[in-house]
């Protein structure tokens, strides 16, 4: 499919969805509105609200806070995941001892941790960062672990016969392999960093997109809720696009089909 045709189809889906929403919320069919504005608002109201959020400039501060929390959660979670992933992969005994505990913590729904983090870290950004970290850490950890474990035995033997010491093996073999696994899950882990931030804000804070949405919900301001959701969705698209750029730069050595399959 050509790029333009794809773009036209993508836009068409959006137009149809919004048109359906608009008809449902403002045209009476057999005397009733299918989508009463009290519950569903209207495209016009939501659009006007989004414009106002940007026109008054109030949204920038919230976007900035959410972005900061996301970035911190990702960075801290990724560094932790990489360090522990390598450590566990190279020390099977350590991995075996901690295995059940890791599985236990990972199985825990993180939302239940949010109040605890707020208790420990307060209502500022750090409780949100912590929530994001618990999500990002495990994704990066498991991928790095896998990446180190899955290095082809032949490539490893070749590297050793070449005379590589542990440090060189790390640099030329384990690190690139682990990184490729980590980057293959980059979309997921960045997404989870954002989820951690927004959910944290939603549950208790004084700034951020999650806070905006929560505020609007508190007063049944449906247009405000939808506007917040749209801004959040657009924000996710931009971040995802940036991640794709990074990924394409760093994973040039991988066959294209493998990238497409993920």
């Amino acid at each position: 499919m050509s790029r333009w045709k794809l773009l036209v189809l993508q836009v068409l889906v959006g137009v149809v969805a919004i048109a359906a929403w608009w008809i449902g919320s403002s045209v009476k069919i057999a005397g009733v509105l299918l989508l009463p504005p009290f519950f569903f608002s209207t495209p016009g109201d939501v659009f006007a609200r989004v414009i106002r959020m940007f026109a008054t400039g109030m949204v920038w501060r919230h976007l900035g806070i959410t972005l900061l929390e996301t970035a911190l959660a990702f960075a801290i979670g990724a560094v932790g995941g990489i360090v522990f992933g390598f450590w566990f992969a190279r020390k099977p005994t350590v991995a075996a001892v901690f295995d059940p505990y890791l599985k236990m913590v990972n199985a825990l729904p993180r939302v239940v941790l949010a109040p605890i983090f707020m208790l420990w870290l307060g209502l500022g950004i750090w409780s949100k960062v912590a929530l994001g970290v618990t999500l990002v850490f495990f994704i990066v950890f498991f991928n790095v672990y896998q990446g180190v474990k899955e290095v082809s035995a032949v490539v490893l033997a070749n590297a050793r016969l070449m005379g590589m010491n542990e440090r060189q093996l790390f640099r030329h073999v384990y690190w690139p392999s682990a990184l490729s696994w980590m980057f293959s899950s980059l979309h997921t882990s960045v997404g989870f960093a954002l989820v951690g931030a927004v959910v944290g804000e939603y549950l208790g804070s004084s700034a951020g997109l999650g806070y905006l949405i929560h505020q609007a919900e508190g007063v049944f301001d449906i247009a405000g809720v939808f506007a917040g959701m749209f801004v959040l969705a657009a924000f996710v698209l931009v971040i995802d696009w940036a991640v794709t750029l990074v990924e394409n730069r760093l994973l040039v050595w991988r066959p294209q089909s493998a990238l497409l399959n993920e």
Partner: protein
Amino acid sequence: MSAPDAPPGPAATSAIRLDDVRIAFPIKGQSTYEAVASTSFAVAESEFVSIVGPTGCGKSTLLNAVAGLVKPAGGRVSVLGRPLVGLCREAGYLFQQDAVMPWKTALDNVALGLEVAGRPRAEAEREARDWLTRVGLARFADRYPHQLSGGQRKRVGLAQVLIRHPKILLMDEPFGPLDAQTRQIMGTLLLDLWAADRKAVLFVTHDLEEAIALSDRVLIMSAGPNARIIGDHRIDLARPRDTADIRLDRRFHELHRAIWSELKAEVVKTYGEASA
């Protein structure tokens, strides 16, 4: 001509020497799989020795033992007169499977051997370009392995091994994925490179003609399990050789007939087992 399990020559003159080497693999649920039974042979310095044998007989396993990647269950491997302990650092090993780093370009892969040894990057890169030219890949220096054909990857692997000037060369079907013509060209190239400094070579191949065209000696391995060396033929064809022309030589045909008659029985044995 044939001398099964001939006692190897004196250790001082052998680059590689195996004494009664046995190799077994533990198999879950069963006891062990005795892949290679008591095998002895030696490769003299600057000697080019090929091993031929039916698929699955243990040729790669034997090379792995010489490289120190597999520990024999019994017997002794010596390299350059010293018993092998751990990995064999003197060996350059061209694996049967792809062993180049998929995350490095052809150039970086070839330069790696020198960089690891502590040579400055610029120098390593210059030499790597030389080697890529020698194996006919000058134009592919910036390609990643997945952008190369199987045969091109093999040649990157060859350059990666040769750039380090190893004292002994272990090659496991290096020309496996190449077409017949390119195989001959690569064979001639290998002989040229080899003639320059005459390393000891242990070369594994399925292709008996290739083995005869390249080698000083051809060893025949029996079908597994408990594979052994059952034939040892000296190839008394004059050097330098052209790997294509030599196949028209009368002596070549005599040798081929003699070795094939021994090898055929083993191949049939393996095939019989597989289809039984």
